[in-house]
């Protein structure tokens, strides 16, 4: 039995400890916002925060995170209020197909937690998620926008 705190709730999962966290979230806990795409930890569609750190959940074994605090896309908004990143995503109309966007938003959330005013270069280094629809220019704009909203100043931080 694995115990996790997921989006603030204590959850117990009876599953193979070798199973990736991704499938536990999607199938055992009914949280399908975290997406499967490459299965090898490269594309970022499955990113979640594990103890505050963005990780590709498709290569994180369930047994290795026993007791961890996990935040998925479903837990990014607090009490139904969109986070600054999510709001910036809407304001910049970032998603197209939307499939990679859960992971993008989680990755951006982690970046801004660590670096509240990232430069373009910081964004280049931190956001390695793959988007096939080509939302990258808008992702970049939305991260700057979220940074401005959260830090409340007018400079663009680039």
């Amino acid at each position, binding site marked *: 039995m694995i115990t996790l705190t997921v989006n603030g709730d204590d959850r117990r999962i009876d*599953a*193979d400890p070798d*199973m*990736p966290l991704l*499938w536990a979230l*999607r*199938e*055992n806990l*009914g*949280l*399908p*916002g*975290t*997406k*499967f*795409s*490459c*299965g*090898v930890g*490269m*594309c970022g*569609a499955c990113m979640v925060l594990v103890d505050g750190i963005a990780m590709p959940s498709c290569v994180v074994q369930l047994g290795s995170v026993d007791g961890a605090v996990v935040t*998925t*896309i*479903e837990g*990014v*908004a607090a009490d139904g209020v*969109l986070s600054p990143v*999510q709001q910036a*995503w*809407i304001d910049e*109309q*970032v*998603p*197209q*197909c*939307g*499939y*990679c*966007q*859960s992971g993008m*938003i989680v990755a951006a959330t982690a970046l801004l937690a660590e670096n509240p005013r990232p430069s373009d270069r910081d*964004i*280049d*280094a931190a*956001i*390695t*998620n*793959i*988007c*096939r*629809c*080509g*939302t*990258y*220019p*808008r*992702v*970049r704009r939305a991260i700057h926008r979220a940074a401005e909203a959260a830090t409340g100043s007018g400079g663009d931080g680039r």
Partner: protein
Amino acid sequence: MSMRAGRLTRRAFLVTGAAVTGGLVVGAGYLSSIDMTGLDGFANADGTVGLNAWIRIAEDGTITFAVPHIEMGQGIFTALPMLIAEELEIRLDGGNIRVEHPVDELPVYANYTLALDMRPEEATGPLYWAAKKVFGIFPLIVTGGSTSVVGSWWPLRVAGASARLMLAEAAADVWQVPAGECFGEDGHIVHRPTGRRLAYGELARAASAKAPTPNPPLKPASAFRLIGKPTPRLDVPAKVTGEAIFGIDVALPDMVHAAIRQSPVFGGTVRSMDAGAVRSMPGVIEVVDLGDAVGVVADSYWQASRAVAALPVEFDDNGNAGGDSARFLADMHRALDATEAHAFRDDGDVDEILAASDRVVEATYETPLLAHACMEPMNCTALFRDGEAELWMGSQSPLIARWGAQSGAKLAGTEAESVTTHVPLTGGGFGRRADGDLARQAAALAASVPGRPVKLIWSREEDIRHDTYRPHAVSRFRAALGLDGLPLAWDNRVVSQSLDRSYGDRNLPVGGGNPAKDHFSVEGAVDPAYAIPRARVELVDHATPVPIGFWRSVGHSNSAFFVESFVDECAHAAGIDPLLYRRGLLAGRPRHRKVLDMLAERSQWGRPLAPGRGRGVALHTAFRTIVGEVAEVTVGVDGALSVDRVVCVVDCGTVINPDTVEAQMEGAILFGLTAALHGEITIEEGRVAQSNFYDYRMLGLADAPAIETHIVPSGEPPGGIGEPGLPPALPALANAIFAATGQRLRALPISKSALRVA
């Protein structure tokens, strides 16, 4: 040849002919009975009412739009509601709007715009009356060819206006006033003389019984409130909270999960498997031989994928293990000199002019196979019970999915008499989801556990190795330049693998078309906008066992690279600026010239660049839309390439949602640049050598250029936007590299070539 006689025309006429004949046999009344207007109202069991095939209104005022096109990122779940809302006189931002892909496959949802290659408003007269109805019989529901807005522009505004008039009549009954005194405004019918108002929700039931107006007057463009205004997408909020449900997210009671392993060699089949070796693994329910693949059904996807990986299987390669990309390429080059070729265009005298010229430019280009790599891996959930199949899948065509499911049922030794398809959101389609393979496999797996839904998910490795690939091609040009440097004669021979044949053989009851005359292999090459006095454009088909499929802009992605690279070479041979050279070839093409002129201005075309930097231009027309792009690159002394900026000018006629046009241009450009820079699927020993994102590379955020899109204001009817931004990106990039380095890259992807600054 006329490009209007286009995409699926051969099949369209086959099918039309057959059905018109059939119609005569069963009586003309049969075709008459097929409703291709969709304007009648109806009442639903759930208390909602339909005002027509696209609009459902609940008493609380919630409006649900049925959009028979899959939302795969292109914004169609917003653009089509905008068309309806414009005439219906409602807001889209009031929180009462739902959009869904209808489960009912109504005849009027048939995409005859794609099949006939005609706008609905153009397809009039008795022949087209019959043809439309024939496509309604299946019905041919399909999202592709950048046709959704083109085909909906007229019918959906009519639907909105007709529904509004029905609501006005219902209100007029209530108030006992002439309907002509009532008008629609913000979800209400208003009585003009008295200012009385009734909400649509209150009127809907009575309105649904009113007779529709088949040809209601439509607003002039000057009166548009929504069309042409940047409008937030209706699907975006759910896509930032994780609530959006994609095909892979479907959850059903009692559902089980499946994974498969397909024959690594194309055309291979299962010789033997040892199901007993995995039956005792945790969660395993069934082990299924699918003929060319093996599948495991289990309690969870993880268990299914572990078991299928462990399953001992032997595949027969059926003689197809010799397939090899290097050999395909050599064969395609040899085929350039084949004695037999099909001429799609021959203006005459081409050989004579070339023979007499002392200014001949010649070049040969090549492009590889490409995968789609949709972010959402291929998947399909199927439920099979008592001869009925139900599917949940991101399908670009429920018709193809139905045929796929029926063939899957046969494979399992049973029949699917009816197939119901639910189409959720999907994580990218790009043409890949127009195939029936997933429905076939999922239906066969579901038949092994009747009554339980089976969710089949392919691994990324299966996805890359069993895609339906963008055709590979080789294209040779010879042009004789006149004294002004412009081409007098133009000889182009294309060698490519037929999409029509490969796709049709896999998916259509009538099978594939004649590969020697496949229009997809030369679309965009036959009739460039340029005035070329004498042209000949020919095709030689090159068959391989590799499955070929639709891909974002398909043939255009090859043709634009070939034609626009070669025009660039001609310009340089003539010593003329490449943008001015193109302008010189566009006499009598004011829309194209306007795109180029705007492009020159916005890209600051003439402004000098530092050494190692270069600009390249390309212009291409596809899917009724003209796109010009200028790419700006830097090549470092170490040969490192940076794509710094792409300026895009698009003339897509009337714009529905400008923000979506911009997003689609950005997306198509990045899709095209990814292909140009990195995209290559190679075949070794009959199988695909790549398997995941580490060897089938995608452009990342850090490498994405700044993109500026400018839209040419236009009152013309709308063109497509999902695909046409892609083709020019490849040649614009290659031409920019030439400008920066003097290196002419004639083979894609660019990553194969070492760049050096001259």
